[in-house]
């Protein structure tokens, strides 16, 4: 039954066989087509009944059937073989060719191979240098001895396959990681009235993405949360962890009292529980609703730079607590810094300041000199020009610059939200923030917030029927007056129930002017309030 080695073809045939599997024309095929074509050719040459390629899924420690001829079921069923077990597993574990003349005598785990009546098997490893990528094997129904020349030929095909799949794996991973990273990082951060925000992100290291992230968002309480972090490692895995961390920061910030150390503590616990082995560094900073002060905590991360009109920029003098995901740490610390009007704060990942062959101190000095109390976009541009220049960074770089605007440059506040009771709190938070940016005093804030609260509450109660609608709120500064406009597009009905309709008299009592313009297509309420002391400076 067995095919004698002597019938193996002559030298000329062998040469033709080798050409057949190294044919330059194959290079034009896509990787999937190339694998199929190579399997066809190798089956012909070696006169085999089956040929299959299994690729290594390294986190799982398993081989996954990826392409097959005569064994297509394997691929369709996503067959997996643990490393070291079964035939393919043994080839992978030894990283050497393995031939079995009679599977009956050996342990073949694969039921598909058994069902196909395969008697003899020859398998070779797919290697990239020393690294195992997978296994290529052929099988015959007739019992068969594989000659050294046949083994060499199959190994030659395997090398070809290894090259192609390596390119495919890294290409797919890289593209997926880039897509993932883009989808995970906010392209734009929310516009916060009274703040100027600018962002730079640069993927370093030959296009393979890293795990850097940045984020800035407002909380219902009026606090602004900003963060820059860096997941250790690169590629798809790091990008995935980064995305989960960024979501977790948002979730914990929403549910935790305004304490950056408490938020980082929870992230740390989450990482250790659900992503063991992953590590990240981060700076988390919370800006008070008044924008006056910034509270921050560092988890193995470099300190932000702060610049004010008063002098050169400085690094925030904050203690560095352990990175996230390393070990249970007690007592993360919070540092508080003032952010006067016009002040700038820069959060960045260490890719910005770490450069091989340049001492860290020199890079840190360069960064400090590049930051000043100027518009956020300008600061970002200067920092990137001075620190990155024309060279591709070796690591990812994330840079988040926030500037507290001067009172003079305060833009009007424009809000459009659903006219429902649950919007009222958010409206008040936004109004408080805006009033802080124009330097309104505590009594002004109390009265304007109350007036806006009453006017918007009226819209929620009376403007729309069950279909609902929107309420627009605008606040602008006119000399020393705050002008409030509350607009809806509903048709008002008169108040129902007891003790309704008191809002209007309250607005009149706490402001200087109230006009209500009720039209068929909606109502516009104008409120004017003179600021007690006028804006400072």
């Amino acid at each position: 039954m067995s095919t004698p080695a002597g019938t193996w073809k002559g030298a000329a045939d062998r040469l033709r066989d080798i050409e057949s599997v190294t044919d330059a024309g194959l290079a034009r095929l896509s990787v999937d087509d190339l694998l199929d074509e190579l399997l066809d050719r190798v089956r012909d040459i070696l006169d085999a009944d089956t040929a299959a390629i299994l690729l290594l899924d390294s986190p799982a420690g398993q081989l996954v059937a990826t392409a097959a001829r005569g064994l297509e079921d394997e691929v369709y069923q996503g067959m997996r073989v643990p490393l070291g077990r079964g035939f393919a597993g043994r080839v992978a574990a030894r990283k050497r060719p393995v031939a079995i003349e009679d599977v009956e005598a050996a342990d073949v785990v694969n039921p598909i191979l058994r069902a196909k009546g395969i008697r003899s098997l020859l398998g070779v490893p797919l290697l990239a240098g020393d690294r195992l990528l997978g296994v290529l094997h052929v099988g015959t129904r007739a019992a068969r001895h594989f000659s050294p020349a046949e083994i060499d030929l199959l190994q030659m095909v395997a090398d070809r396959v290894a090259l192609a799949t390596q390119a495919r794996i890294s290409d797919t991973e890289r593209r997926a990681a880039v897509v993932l990273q883009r989808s995970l990082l906010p392209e734009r951060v929310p516009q916060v009235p009274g703040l100027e925000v600018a962002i730079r992100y640069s993927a370093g290291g030959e296009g393979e993405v890293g795990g850097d992230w940045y984020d800035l968002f407002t909380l219902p309480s009026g606090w602004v949360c900003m963060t820059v972090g860096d997941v250790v490692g690169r590629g798809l895995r790091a990008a995935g962890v980064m995305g989960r961390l960024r979501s977790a920061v948002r979730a914990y910030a929403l549910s935790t009292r305004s304490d950056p150390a408490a938020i980082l503590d929870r992230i740390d616990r989450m990482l250790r529980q659900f992503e063991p082995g992953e590590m990240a560094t981060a700076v988390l900073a919370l800006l008070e609703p008044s924008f006056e002060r910034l509270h921050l905590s560092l988890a193995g991360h470099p300190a932000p730079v702060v610049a004010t009109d008063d002098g050169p920029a400085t690094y925030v003098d904050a203690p560095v607590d352990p990175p996230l995901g390393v070990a249970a740490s007690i007592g993360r610390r919070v540092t508080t810094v003032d952010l006067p009007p016009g002040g700038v704060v820069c959060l960045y990942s260490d890719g910005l300041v770490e450069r091989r062959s340049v001492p860290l101190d020199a890079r840190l000095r360069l960064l400090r000199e590049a930051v000043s109390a100027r518009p956020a976009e300008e600061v970002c541009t200067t920092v990137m020009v001075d620190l990155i220049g024309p060279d591709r960074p070796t690591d990812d770089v994330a840079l988040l610059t926030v500037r507290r605007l001067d009172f003079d440059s305060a833009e009007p506040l424009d809000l459009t939200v659903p006219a429902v009771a649950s919007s009222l709190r958010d409206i008040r938070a936004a109004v408080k923030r805006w009033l802080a940016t124009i330097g309104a005093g505590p009594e002004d804030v109390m009265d304007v917030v109350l007036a806006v609260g009453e006017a918007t509450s009226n819209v929620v109660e009376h403007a729309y029927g069950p279909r609902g609608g929107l309420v627009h709120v605008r606040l602008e500064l006119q000399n020393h007056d705050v002008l409030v406009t509350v607009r809806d597009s509903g048709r008002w009905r008169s108040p129902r129930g007891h003790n309704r309709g008191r809002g209007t008299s309250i607005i009149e009592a706490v402001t200087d002017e109230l006009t209500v313009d009720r039209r068929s297509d909606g109502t516009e309420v104008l409120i004017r309030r003179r600021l007690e002391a006028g804006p400072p400076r």
Partner: protein
Amino acid sequence: MTTARVDVASEGGGVRIAIAGEVDLANAAIVEEQIVAAITNQVTGVSVDLGGVDYIDSAGLRIFFALGPRLAGLQITLELVAPVGSPSRRLLEVSGLPSLVTLQPPMDGAAR
């Protein structure tokens, strides 16, 4: 969502209710329910401390506009405690509510 905390403590024959947080249209009904539940038929007086309130508007005041006359009919006294300069004080002073219920500390001048 607007949130407020309502703490209740017995004080002699009366009850002291401390409200903290914010009260607006979104949670006024919930706060009212908690206040009413704290007032049994046996108490002789109710004191509501609004010192911890960061925001309250007319939707929140309705609770007391309704509660004042009802308690008066039951011969239960109602006093509202609002420190001078607090957000609730400001609102109470311009709302006309002090003509119905006792305000602590008492008002001394006219509202702005």
